[in-house]
């Protein structure tokens, strides 16, 4: 039972963090708070992927050391020696997408503020009617 909890608790923490962001996205009235919730959501996903990359048992960062780099194939690199580089690469892409969505969302918020002079969602909807 304890081993089960140790094997899974970090996924649960990321799910709780993700749900905090989701709650902020769907229930907050201020548009900036919604954008902050979206960022929390995306950060939880990034943490989740990076935790998938981890390998127990002495695995290090996926950068070859000098001794390995000059071996040129004579020394066979063991798969368990380095953590999985693929989730890190995918999350590099996800960070870029996160910055792009954040920028466009803030630009749209600035446009709305210029037009309606408020960032509260209910006041904007009232002004639209």
């Amino acid at each position: 039972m304890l081993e089960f909890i140790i094997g899974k608790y970090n996924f649960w923490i990321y799910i709780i963090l993700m749900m905090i962001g989701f709650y902020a996205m769907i229930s907050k009235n201020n548009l900036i708070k919604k954008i902050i919730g979206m960022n929390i959501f995306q950060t939880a996903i990034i943490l989740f992927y990076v935790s998938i990359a981890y390998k127990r048992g002495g695995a290090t960062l996926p950068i070859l050391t000098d001794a390995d780099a000059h071996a040129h194939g004579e020394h066979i690199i063991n798969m368990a020696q380095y953590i999985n580089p693929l989730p890190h690469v995918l999350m590099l892409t996800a960070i870029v997408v996160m910055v792009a969505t954040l920028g466009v969302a803030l630009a749209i918020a600035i446009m709305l503020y210029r037009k309606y002079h408020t960032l509260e969602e209910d006041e904007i909807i009232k002004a639209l009617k």
Partner: protein
Amino acid sequence: MIVTIITGAFLIYGTLDMPEWGDPNSPASRHVSPRYIEKTEIETATPNMVTSVLADYRGYDTLGETTVIFTAGASCIMLLRRRKKKG
């Protein structure tokens, strides 16, 4: 709030089938990542595996990423530009 709790409960139910944290034989680290780790020095001569995967093995992904950045920048400029008033 209720929607949030229901979604979170479903996601936690989904983690019950996931491999344990730090398991070296989890499916995520068995398919292509051993090849990246073992062949990156021979094929790309780059000591940093993240760089070699990003720029060599998955270069098209990075190309698409620059398209995303370009589109976002262009749409930000289009949204934030103050137009000159006519007349």
